[in-house]
C-alpha cells in the first residue's frame, strides 16, 4: 500500500519501539507526566461538563473487590454525572466509568432490555439499568440515586453478582423443548393454534436477568427453591401443546417437588419487578392448579 506521507509514521514507530523496553529514566518520567496530564484532562472535561450541564445527578454506587486494597471492605462511591433527557441508570454508570473510574464494574451489553445483563438494585428495587430512566426515579435531581448489586446473590465485584446459582435453577427444570413425537415428511411442521401460542407468549419473554429471583423472599430463605424464573420456564413448556402429555407429566413432577411451586406464597414481588412484564405469580399459581388436577387424575 503506498503512502502519501511517510515521515510522520517512521518517527512514531521509533518512539514506540524504545518506549516499553528500556527507555531512559527521563523519557519514562516525561511520558508518565504526559499521561497523567491526559487523565487530568479527561477528569477536567468531565468537571466542565458537569458544571455546564443544567442539571446533574448524584449516584452512589456499591463498590467491592476481594483483592484490591481499599475495596475489600464494601463501600459506596459517589459520582456526579451531567443529566440529559432520556438518560438511563446504565448511561449514568457508563459516564462515571468512562470519565472518573475505569475500574467501576458492571455487566451490560445490548442497552435495549433484551440481553438481561444489567439487572441492578436501584433505590431499593430490582430493575434493568438500561430500561430505568433517571427521570422516572423519585427526586432524581435532589437526592442521591443508590445503585447496588442484586440482593441475595454473592457479589463478585462492584455491581457484578455470581449468576451460577440462578443458571443452575433454570437448568433444573429441564428447560428445553422435547416433543413426544415429531411430524414426518419433508418440511413438515408441528401445528400450534394461535390461542396456544398466545398462552405461552408472555412466558417466552424471559431474558434470564434474575431480578425476580433476587426480589423473592422465599428464594432468599430457601436456596433450593427453584424460583420464579425457572418455574416460569417450566410453565412455558408444560403449557406448550406441541410437547405432548407424557412430557407435561414429567414437567409437573419436577415443579411439584419440595422446593417447587408450593413454596410460593404469592407475594407478587417477582411480578412487580419483572422488566418484561411476565405475570410470574399467575404462572406459578396456574401450575399449582395443574399439579392438583394432575394428582387427582391418578387417585
Amino acid at each position, binding site marked *: *500500500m*503506498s*503512502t502519501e*506521507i*511517510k515521515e510522520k*509514521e517512521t518517527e*512514531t*514507530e521509533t518512539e*514506540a519501539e524504545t*518506549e*516499553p523496553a528500556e527507555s531512559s529514566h527521563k523519557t519514562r518520567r516525561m*511520558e*508518565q507526566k504526559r*499521561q*497523567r496530564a*491526559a*487523565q487530568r484532562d*479527561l477528569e477536567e472535561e468531565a468537571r466542565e461538563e458537569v458544571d455546564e450541564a443544567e442539571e446533574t445527578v448524584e449516584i452512589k454506587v456499591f463498590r467491592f*473487590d476481594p*483483592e*484490591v486494597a481499599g475495596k475489600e471492605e464494601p463501600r459506596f462511591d459517589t459520582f456526579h454525572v451531567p443529566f440529559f433527557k*432520556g438518560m438511563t441508570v446504565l448511561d449514568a454508570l457508563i459516564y462515571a*466509568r*468512562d470519565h472518573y*473510574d*475505569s*475500574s467501576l*464494574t458492571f*455487566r*451490560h*451489553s*445490548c*442497552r435495549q*432490555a*433484551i*440481553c438481561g*445483563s444489567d439487572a441492578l438494585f436501584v433505590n431499593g428495587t430490582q430493575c434493568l439499568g438500561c*430500561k430505568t*430512566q433517571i427521570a422516572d426515579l423519585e427526586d432524581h435531581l435532589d437526592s442521591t440515586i443508590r445503585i447496588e448489586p442484586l440482593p441475595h446473590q454473592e457479589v*463478585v*465485584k462492584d455491581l457484578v453478582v455470581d*449468576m451460577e446459582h440462578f443458571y443452575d435453577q433454570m*437448568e433444573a427444570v429441564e*428447560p*428445553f*423443548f*422435547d*416433543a413426544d413425537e415429531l411430524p414426518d415428511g419433508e*418440511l413438515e*411442521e408441528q*401445528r*400450534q393454534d*394461535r390461542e396456544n*401460542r398466545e398462552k405461552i407468549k408472555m412466558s*417466552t419473554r*424471559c*431474558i*434470564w436477568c434474575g431480578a425476580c429471583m433476587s426480589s423473592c423472599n422465599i428464594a432468599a430463605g430457601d436456596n433450593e427453591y427453584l424460583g420464579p424464573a425457572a418455574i416460569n420456564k417450566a410453565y412455558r*413448556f408444560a403449557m*406448550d401443546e406441541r410437547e405432548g402429555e407424557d412430557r407435561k407429566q414429567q414437567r409437573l413432577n419436577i415443579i411439584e417437588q419440595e422446593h417447587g411451586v408450593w413454596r410460593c406464597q404469592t407475594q407478587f414481588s417477582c411480578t412487580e419487578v419483572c422488566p418484561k412484564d411476565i405475570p410470574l405469580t399467575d404462572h406459578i399459581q396456574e401450575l399449582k392448579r395443574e399439579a392438583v388436577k394432575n394428582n387427582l387424575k391418578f387417585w
Partner: protein
Amino acid sequence: MYEHDVLVIGGGGAGLRAAIAAHEEGADVAIVTKLHPVRSHTGAAEGGINAALRDADSWEDHAYDTMKGSDFLGDAPAIETFAKNAPDEVINLEHWGMPFSREEDGRVSQRPFGGLSFPRTTYAGAETGHHMLHTMYEQVVKRGIEVYDEWYVSRLAVTDHDDPEDRVCHGCVAYDIKTGEIAGFKADGGVILATGGLGQAFDHTTNAVANTGDGPAMAYRAGVPVEDMEMIQFHPTTLPSTGVLISEGVRGEGGILYNDEGERFMFEEGYANNEGELASRDVVSRAELTEVNEGNGIEDEYVHLDMRHLGEDRILDRLENILHLAEDFEGVDGLEEPMPVKPGQHYAMGGIEVDENGETCINGLYAAGECACVSMHGANRLGGNALPELLVFGARAGYHAGGRDLGEARIDTGPSAMSEEEDVNTPISPGAVDAGDEDIAADGALVDPSEVIDHHVTAEERRVEELLEKDDGVNHAEVRADVQETMTENVNVFREEGNLKEALEDIRVARERYQDVYVRDPSRTFNTDLIHTIETRNIMDVAEAITLGALAREEFRGAHWRQQHQERKDDEWIKHTMLAWNDGNPEIYYKPVVLEGENKTYEPKERSY
C-alpha cells in the same frame, strides 16, 4: 490446557448452531464466549427469518432476491447453498420448539420484507432473535454441550508458516473474566469463530457494546484475509438518541415514512416508486439522509415512521415489542404518534473470508455468522437474511469441523485466490504501529500443537501483565470514542474521498495513542477495564479495514456510495475487496465474484425497487 475436538468462539446464534451441528456429528464440542449465551446480540434481532417454505415460493426465487439485493456482489455458490438449506433450518427450529407466530391453520406465519418477491419472512412477534437464541441455547443445554461463559478469547493459536495458507490453527487463548486465569484451549477438529458484529467501530449503532469485531480482528491478524469490509449496512429505522433498532417488520406490516413536510417521500420524491418503504435498506437509508440533508428532516436529524393506521390490535399482535422500545428508549407512544427514526450502523456484510463450508484459508480455522463473509450478502443484506444465514452456515461449519463430508467448496479462499493487486493511496501507513505485535508465533518452526498454544499463552500473559503493570497512561475509552466518532462522521452512508482519508489519519492517531494505553483497575477479578482495552485494539483494526475498503472501491454499489463515483461500474468492480494483514503491513487485492450458479449464471441488472 483445556482440550476438545471442536471449539466454538462465541455463544450467539451462529455459535450455538455450529455447536449443535458438531455435537450431532459426535464431536466433543465446547463453546467459549465472553458473554453467557443468552446475553448474545442475536437476541436483539427483531424482524424474522427468510425461507422458501411454501409451494408458491422456491429456493431459486429466494436466491435471486438475495443476489439482486447483494447488488451482484454475492457469490452464487454461497447464495444457492443458503437458499436451499434455509427451509430445513427453519423447520428444525420449529421442531426445537421455537414459538413462531402462527396462521389460523396452525402453520408458521410469513410476512413481506424489503427486497423479497414473496412474503417469506417467518417470525415470532417482533422479537424473533430472542426466541431463536433461547430456543437454540435450550438445545445446547439438552445436549449437555460444555459452555465456558465469560471467558474472553483474545488470541488464536496459529502456526508461524510464512504463507497463511500453510498455517494451522490449533486452538486459542482465553481469559477467564471472573478469575483472571489465562488458559490455552486446544482443538484438533477445528476452531469456529462466531463472534458476531463489529458495530462498536461506530458511535451510532444498533449493535451491542460487546460487538467489537473480535473475530474479524483476530483472524485478520492471524493471516486470514478480510473481505468486502466496506460493505456496512445502515438500518433506516433506528431511534435517534440510542441507536435502538425499530424492526423492518413495522414497514413490512404497512408502516409509512414521512418527512417534515408530511410527504410520503419514498414515493413522492421518487426514491422507490414501486416498493416505497419496502425498498432495500440501503435505498431507504440514503433516501432518509437525502431528505434530512435537503432540509426536510425533523429537527434536521430524522424522519417519522408512522404505524398508527395499522390499528391497536394488529400492532399488539405483531409489533408489541416495538411499542415498548419506542416508549422505553425514546419516550414515544407508537399508538398515538409517529416514531422518530434515522439510519444507524446495523450489520457488516463483509468479514472473515470463508467458503461455503465455513473454512478459512488457515487449516482448522472456521468462521460463521456476521463475523464471516461467505459472501452471500455482497454489497447489501436483505432484511430477514441474517438469521437464516447464521443457521445455514453455522450448521455447515459445525458439521464440517465435526467431520462430515460436505463436498468440495466452490469458493476459493486465501491470498492464492487473488486476481488483481491494488495500490491505494493512503495518507498514512495503515496497520501495526509496533511491528513486534503479531498474532502468529514468530520464533521459527513452531508446529507442535501444544507448543503453539503454549507460545500464545505466554505471549498473552505478557500482554496482560504489561497492561496491568502500567501505573499511568491513556484510558482506552478515549481512544475508542475517537475511533467511533470519526467512523460515524466520515465513513457513514455517504462517503467522500477526503473524509475517508481523514478517518484513516484519525485511526492512525488512535493507534499511536493506544501504544500508551493502560488499565487502571489492578484487579484480576472481573476486570472489564482490561477486557475493554483489549477489545479497543480490535475496534481499531476493523475500523481501519472498513475505511481502506471504502477508499479502494471507487464506485457505488449496494450500501457503498462514493461522492465522486455515483454509479455502479460492473465492468471494473464485480470483484471482492480483499485485505490481508501481511504481518502488520496491510495489502489490498481483489478476487472475482462467482456469478455462475448451479443451473444458471446471474446477469447483473439494474437494481430498482
